[in-house]
């Protein structure tokens, strides 16, 4: 039954369910391996799964490409977009907003924490000189911005937050192998809780594999993914701090 708010994948004809898969199995190529790949695809809900490509991927491993027609459908009426909701403002509007509604400069401390040394992302948000033609937070006259750089231990970040009476902490996490970002991000919330500071700061995380949803799950206020612009972040901070201030 396809109701109008149900959608399926689509290749050749609407709602045919066509999807492409690829994966490796720890089996040598052959009839059995192919059958295993087909089965796996069937378990994923594919009708008529077809293994269109099988090749040895090192001794004892095979790589597969599979096409098939996925039975599953998604009810779009049940979905909620899980990105941070932002009413974006312009550079000038943001400064004016802070000046008029909050009436003081906001203190924002940023760092790429743990052993992560990818600064390009957080610099894109922070740097004076800007990124892709948009100024970073350091340029905003109504924001005091500190960029602590990369490989900053959480303890140092918390100390800096305390020292600067930070309104918002911006944490960047790029390396995610074995969920290192998760343990690192969790450690920060624990430290802040332990210091009794958690309620006093807006806690924001960003990075290419970060979603707003993940951020919420980890006890952060917001998460920003790939393609984030400084204005989005600044708009969010200004509005959210004003909102909280209002009660």
């Amino acid at each position: 039954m396809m109701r109008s708010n149900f959608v399926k994948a689509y290749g050749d004809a609407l709602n045919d369910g066509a999807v492409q898969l690829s994966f490796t199995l720890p089996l040598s190529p052959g009839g059995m391996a192919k059958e295993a790949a087909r089965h796996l695809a069937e378990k994923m809900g594919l009708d008529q799964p077809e293994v269109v490509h099988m090749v040895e991927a090192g001794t004892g491993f095979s790589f597969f490409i599979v096409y098939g027609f996925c039975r599953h459908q998604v009810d779009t009426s049940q979905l909620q977009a899980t990105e941070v909701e932002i009413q974006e403002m312009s550079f000038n509007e943001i400064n004016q907003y802070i000046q008029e509604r909050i009436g003081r400069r906001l203190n924002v401390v940023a760092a790429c924490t743990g052993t992560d040394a990818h600064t390009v992302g957080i610099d894109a948000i922070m740097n004076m000189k800007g990124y892709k033609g948009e100024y970073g937070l350091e340029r905003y006259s109504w924001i005091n911005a500190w960029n602590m750089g990369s490989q900053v231990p959480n303890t140092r970040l918390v100390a800096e937050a305390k020292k600067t009476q930070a309104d918002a902490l911006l944490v960047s996490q790029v390396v995610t192998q074995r969920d290192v970002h998760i343990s690192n991000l969790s450690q920060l919330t624990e430290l802040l809780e332990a210091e009794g500071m958690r309620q006093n700061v807006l806690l924001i995380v960003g990075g290419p594999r970060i979603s707003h949803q993940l951020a919420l799950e980890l006890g952060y206020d917001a998460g920003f993914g790939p393609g984030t612009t400084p204005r989005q972040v600044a708009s969010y901070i200004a509005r959210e701090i004003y909102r909280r201030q209002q009660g």
Partner: protein
Amino acid sequence: MKLNLDQAVINRCRQAAGHIAGDVDQFIRQRTTVSLERAVLRLMGINDAMDDVPVANLFVETIQAGQGLGRGAAYWLANGCYQLKLTADEVAQRVVSGQLDLFQLPQADRATLNPTLEKLMQPTIEKIKDQHRFRKDKLSNLGMGPEPLLYVIVATGDIYQDVDQAVAAVAQGADIVAVIRTTGQSLLDYVPHGSTREGFGGTYATQENFRIMREALDEAGDKAGRYVMLVNYSSGLCMPEIAVLGALERLDMMLNDALYGILFRDINMQRTLIDQHFSRQIIGFAGAIINTGEDNYLTTADAVEEAHTVTASQFINEQLALLAGLEDRQIGLGHAFEIDPSMTDGLLLEIAQAQMARQLFPRAPLKYMPPTKHMTGDIFQGHLQNGLFNLTSVLTGQGVHLLGMVTEAIHTPYVQDRLLALQNARYVMNNARNLGEELSIRDDGKISARARDVLEKAAQMLETVAEIGLFAALERGMFADIERSRDGGKGLDGVVMKDVDYCNPFQELLTQQAGSSGGGNDEK
């Protein structure tokens, strides 16, 4: 980037091909076919169907049964109108419903009928000219993308799904959309009627389907700010008829190649060469472009061994097209990127072939086909093969560039396959846009040697074909490794000798025009 080709060898090729085409032309001029005559009827407005059977078919069958086809369907229709003071439609209706036996009517002579013929032709000629003008205006207002033009196919089998997919492709950058035809249609000796949703591996070519897609593409093109070309097949047993429908519905390109039908559809060679000539006259008049099918040879024959057959066939197709009144810029000769990807230095040979074709036919909108034969289920590898193909195309300045699909070996393209193909071409061609101008090819290298070798072999082959004639060459399996006999294949029973008083005012007009202007129906 330029190859140093020997002009003397090129001249030999053209001369032999001219000879071959001349021989074929002699043969053609004396004959007509059922499809050609149906096309004439369609040009006179007979485009309806009765219980899904086109009136043009029924009409021609009646005339053929009465042994009258040698005089030309136009004659009988015009004579009917003249004698009975009826419209063409009225005459046709009566004939096919059995109410009227044309052979019982008095038979006016040609001179007497000329005003009637003139009147019957006029509306279609005007319509085609209008379409031509419309295209020219659109093109000069909106323009097209830079060459190579990006050509994609849609092939859902359902014209309405085709429209969705075509519109999506235009939004992604397609310059040209071809609606692929259902399997089997090429062997139908009639053109189906109305809109259709039940093709396999393609959608029926019908006038209504043409119209639906033309409308959708015009709209999508306006939105995208460029003119989008529409392509279908004037090919198979109904070549000339589909040419007419294409002209009426403003198709911009038509796959059109008798050799393809002979080799890959086992259509009788006499039949389809006759059909081809008239279809090309119509396409020429409509200001559209033909696409020839040499690329297909390399799906059955080896691209390294048999490359010269592609080149030879291009020369023949060029000469046949010129004889039908097409201009160079309307002759989209086909070739393809079909060398086994595992070959060391294979890319050098591909560059040689593509660049050679470019130089041999400098004004032709060369139709360059992507890898198909050596595509596999490995879509990642396939994406790269298409990438090198795209690179070769922009490097050598091809005209009409068919996009390769990652799933070529699996299914007719999904909407995302076309997306990936367009992204591939856009990226590679843009990133290497002027690379061709930067580089020159060593005269003593492998690329030059390959081009020289293929060209010389093509010349030798053409000279052999010129000697024995095209029919005999096809009987010997000289193209695509496939042998076909002169009297075998489908459709021979539809070939008829023209009477001395054969009447086909369109053909007369087009032949005359071609003689004077060299193709197209306007001032340029």
